């Protein structure tokens, strides 16, 4: 493996569509639940342990070779909100395009054929990591970091939050992210051995509910 490939995949400028999504931050800002760096940290911590953990485990399992079709179904089962499923598939489709251009291989082509409208983004992230020669832990880290960095950068735009404060939030969450990544990789190992039912199924109900409301807004800055 090449360590630098991890930087390419984890780069916020990797052209895979993430910039148009807030990870629920736009709805939370509008509802008054994120008003500054302190709230942002709470929000990101909540995501890290719920949607983040699930995404990390899905991505790591994909690297371990668990069937992407089973993983995609498992992701569906863990995403109650139809709006979030749609967003996850759109992002998965966009990431797959970028990954196929960056690390062309037969496996990614095959997945594109299976999912013309996209598979859940964390599953594709794992497959991209695998194509880049990375390991399950790398994929879990990418998924977990995205689960908090997306809302943090979106909040900078939405609240004109000081960007140094937002980055400070991410830095303070780093040790916790390490711990969640370890859990995610452990769960992925169990899923590889015993099937996708072993994947975690944590979720933030309010994230799901607010995503549905957000999708119906007539005017919004972010797609989700």
């Amino acid at each position: 493996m090449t360590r630098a490939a991890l930087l390419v995949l984890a780069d916020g400028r990797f052209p895979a569509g993430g910039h148009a999504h807030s990870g629920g931050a736009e709805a939370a800002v509008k509802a008054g639940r994120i008003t500054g760096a302190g709230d942002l940290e709470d929000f990101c911590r909540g995501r890290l342990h719920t949607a983040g953990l699930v995404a990390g485990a899905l991505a790591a399992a994909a690297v371990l070779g668990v069937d992407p079709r089973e993983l995609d179904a498992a992701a569906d089962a863990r995403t109650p909100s139809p709006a979030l499923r749609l967003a996850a598939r759109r992002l998965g489709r966009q990431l797959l395009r970028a990954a196929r251009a960056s690390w062309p291989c037969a496996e990614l082509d095959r997945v594109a054929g299976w999912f013309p409208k996209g598979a859940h983004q964390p599953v594709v992230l794992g497959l991209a990591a695998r194509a880049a020669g990375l390991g399950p832990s790398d994929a879990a880290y990418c998924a977990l970091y995205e689960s908090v960095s997306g809302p943090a950068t979106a909040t900078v735009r939405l609240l004109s939050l000081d960007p140094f404060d937002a980055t400070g939030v991410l830095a303070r969450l780093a040790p916790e992210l390490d711990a969640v990544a370890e859990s995610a990789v452990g769960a992925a190992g169990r899923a590889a051995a015993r099937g996708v039912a072993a994947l975690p199924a944590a979720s933030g109900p309010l994230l799901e509910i607010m995503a549905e409301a957000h999708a119906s807004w007539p005017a919004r800055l972010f797609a989700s």
Partner: protein
Amino acid sequence: MHLDHLPHGPAAVSADAHRPDGTRRALRIGLGGPVGSGKTATVAALCRELRDELSLAVVTNDIYTREDAEFLLREAVLPPERITAVETGACPHTAIRDDISANLEAVEDLEETVGPLDLILVESGGDNLTATFSKGLVDAQIFVIDVAGGDDIPRKGGPGVTTADLLVVNKTDLAPYVGSDLARMAADAKTQRAELPVVLQSLRGGSGVADVAAWVRERLAAWTA
């Protein structure tokens, strides 16, 4: 295909001139420019000019609403299934230049659902003078400015004004009311753009649209040749 193997499923890279089934894809023309310069109105006028002779579709990049798409729908310039809106996450230039994936998905979906298409117009959200389209997304681009935005814009230049394949100076009918010197704008544009074409357009007065449409037809002839 520049990849060294034949892909299963959709093509990986959309600058490819061919669709996965081997047919030539639609020509894609981007329209960019500052807020309020008349991009959507120009798209609407182009649709009216060209829709009887070409199979057309439009992608809009609204910044925080669907207003541009809804304007086109309300004006009924095309059937609704030929107009798609992309959401840009507060960064219109990112969606047309740095991370074009959502726009590529939109153009591919249009070709798949209402194709075969001859031409897809991709309209940017209103942005600044540095916003240009990626070559991975469009084959040619039009930059739309207007006389009311200040007659110094062509002189200031910037990537949109200097490098767009066609520069449209819109709302020329307003020039006397806003104190803009059209001759100066045209001369400055000529200096900045050398041989690249400029059209002075007034949608109210009906002038210029035919020139823009003629330029699009030329591009299309070159694309299909």
